[in-house]
């Protein structure tokens, strides 16, 4: 058995018991990154020396009998929009070229405190704006299942690195689906926590009423362990708060007797790839066999959620990204006129998709259009939230596909913003509603591309979602399916 076959929880247990040296674990991940990353583009920075030193410190502490955390010795990939002290955090953008993080993001600091070892920064769509992993200034990430296809975005590198077993665990961020979507397309687990469950201090802001930090892992229990480590109130993020504890689900197989789940035809939009609803139907059958009761609900406003999401997210992005002016961060242009300097810096620094979003967001907030666009989007957001809350009053989780389609070819949707935005149609409702949601592998299409099953829960319902997902994972074993050629 090699290190890459071990889950994060198995690694931590072995390191704590001194059956495995953290240094060997980190070295194994570094070796694998060196072997595979050149062709996949998952990582944008590798901190080999620093990670090996952290691992050596941990091994010495283990040797001295000091208590070690629940993630002791687990190598971690951190999405490049989360600050890691001393790393060149760029959020996938040219505009942050030369920027070095002054400290750790709250989630990174908490993962470290639990024993995890950040060893590499993961690629991402620029500022988290993309659904395919193709808009990064570092170049696209490729899907380990098929390098001609996208891994999904925007946490493309973290998800693909976990799928390729370069790392057992990763931290991502999810604004409209950026953890769940790449998790689905790469065949791994991704969790978006309840809004406020995890601090965003040190997360490069995209849309502040939507951004959340979440774990990506090969198993539900690994994701639970990382989420438990990073969750909780942080004075550095006024929207963060404490919630119910997040226990790692006990060893299976678990039963779901009497657990009420809901599904909806509104979660199967036109344009779904045919294998997707088939695999979701199979998943519903699995839940029934575990004892769950499934009923159908209608969610008519899901169809309006995408427009509301993009108007709100882009409005917030247009203001959040105003800080990149060539004065405070990163790179700057040479002009000696202020406006010319700002415009030239932003012209050279932002990619096409980021410009599109800033323009749409500026329009949505502009005098004359703000009422019909931004305010109406905010009203629709309330309707979506009410609808989901009502459905979840009578069910522990809403079950459906994470994405209407499995991984598509690189370039296939990149030039058409609407085709790209359509990827998010099933993930944005939970974002708008502030609810926790996760994606768990639901099996493969006939041509062997992973499909994700999404579970959306009530606010604070992470532990329920994780338990339901763990029961599903135990009985299906879909998480054990590995990309061909990545042995």
């Amino acid at each position, binding site marked *: 058995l090699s290190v890459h076959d071990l889950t994060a929880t198995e690694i931590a247990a072995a390191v704590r018991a001194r059956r495995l040296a953290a240094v060997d674990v980190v070295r194994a991940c570094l070796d694998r990154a060196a072997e595979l990353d050149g062709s996949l583009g998952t990582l944008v920075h590798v901190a080999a020396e620093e990670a090996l030193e952290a691992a050596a410190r941990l091994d010495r502490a283990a040797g001295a009998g000091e208590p070690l955390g629940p993630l002791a010795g687990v190598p971690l990939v951190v999405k490049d929009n989360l600050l890691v002290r001393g790393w060149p955090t760029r959020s996938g953008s040219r505009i942050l070229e030369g920027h070095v993080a002054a400290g750790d993001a709250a989630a990174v600091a908490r993962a470290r405190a639990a024993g995890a070892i950040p060893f590499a920064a993961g690629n991402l769509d620029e500022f988290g704006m993309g659904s395919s992993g193709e808009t990064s200034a570092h170049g696209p990430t490729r899907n380990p299942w098929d390098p001609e296809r996208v891994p999904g975005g925007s946490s493309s590198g973290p998800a693909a690195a976990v799928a390729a077993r370069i790392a057992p665990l990763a931290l991502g961020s999810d604004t409209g689906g950026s953890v769940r979507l790449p998790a689905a397309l790469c065949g791994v687990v991704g969790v978006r926590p309840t*809004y406020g469950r995890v601090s965003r201090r040190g997360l490069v802001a995209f849309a502040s009423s939507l951004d959340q930090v979440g774990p990506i892992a090969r198993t539900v229990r690994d994701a639970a362990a990382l989420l438990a480590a990073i969750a909780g109130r942080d004075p550095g993020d006024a929207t963060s708060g404490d919630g119910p504890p997040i226990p790692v689900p006990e060893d299976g197989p678990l039963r779901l007797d009497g657990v009420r789940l809901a599904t909806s035809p509104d979660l199967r939009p036109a344009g779904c790839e045919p294998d997707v609803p088939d695999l979701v139907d199979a998943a519903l059958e699995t839940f029934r066999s575990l004892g769950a009761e499934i009923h159908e609900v209608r969610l008519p406003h899901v169809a*309006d959620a995408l427009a509301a999401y993009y108007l709100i997210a882009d409005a917030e992005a247009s203001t959040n990204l105003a800080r990149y002016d060539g004065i405070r961060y990163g790179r*700057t242009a040479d002009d000696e006129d202020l406006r010319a300097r700002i415009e030239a810096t932003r012209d050279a620094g932002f990619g096409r998709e980021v410009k599109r979003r800033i323009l749409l967001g500026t329009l949505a907030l502009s005098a004359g259009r703000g009422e019909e666009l931004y305010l109406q989007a905010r009203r629709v957001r309330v309707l979506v939230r009410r609808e989901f809350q009502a459905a979840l009053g009578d069910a522990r989780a809403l079950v459906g596909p994470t994405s209407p389609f499995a991984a598509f070819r690189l370039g296939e949707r990149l030039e058409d913003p609407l085709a790209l935005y359509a990827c998010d149609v099933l993930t944005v409702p939970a974002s708008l509603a502030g609810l926790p949601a996760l994606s768990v592998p639901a099996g493969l299409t006939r041509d062997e591309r992973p499909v994700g099953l999404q579970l959306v829960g009530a606010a604070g319902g992470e532990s329920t979602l994780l338990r339901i997902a763990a029961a599903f994972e135990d009985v299906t074993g879909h998480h054990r399916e590995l990309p061909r050629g990545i042995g």
Partner: protein
Amino acid sequence: VDLRLLARLARLKVSDEEIGPLRRDLERVLDHFARIAAVDTSGVSDEEALASSTATGEPRADEPTPPLPASTVLGAAPRTRDGYVRVPPFLGEDA
């Protein structure tokens, strides 16, 4: 869509070559998003729509904590001089 005005408001320089494709993209997206105008939102007050409904935490205690060292903050800025961030002249600017 007056793309040049929008670009000016957003402090984006848009070249003559970019302006056509960007306007086309934006108009397509807006056409599609226009569907939300037809949603019956009469049951949602503006107050509820604009409430910070997603904030969950309490403000932190108003106690002084050590700030980032000045050298760290200055280190992030591309142009500095004598312990200050250097900016182009801006007084009198209509920006």
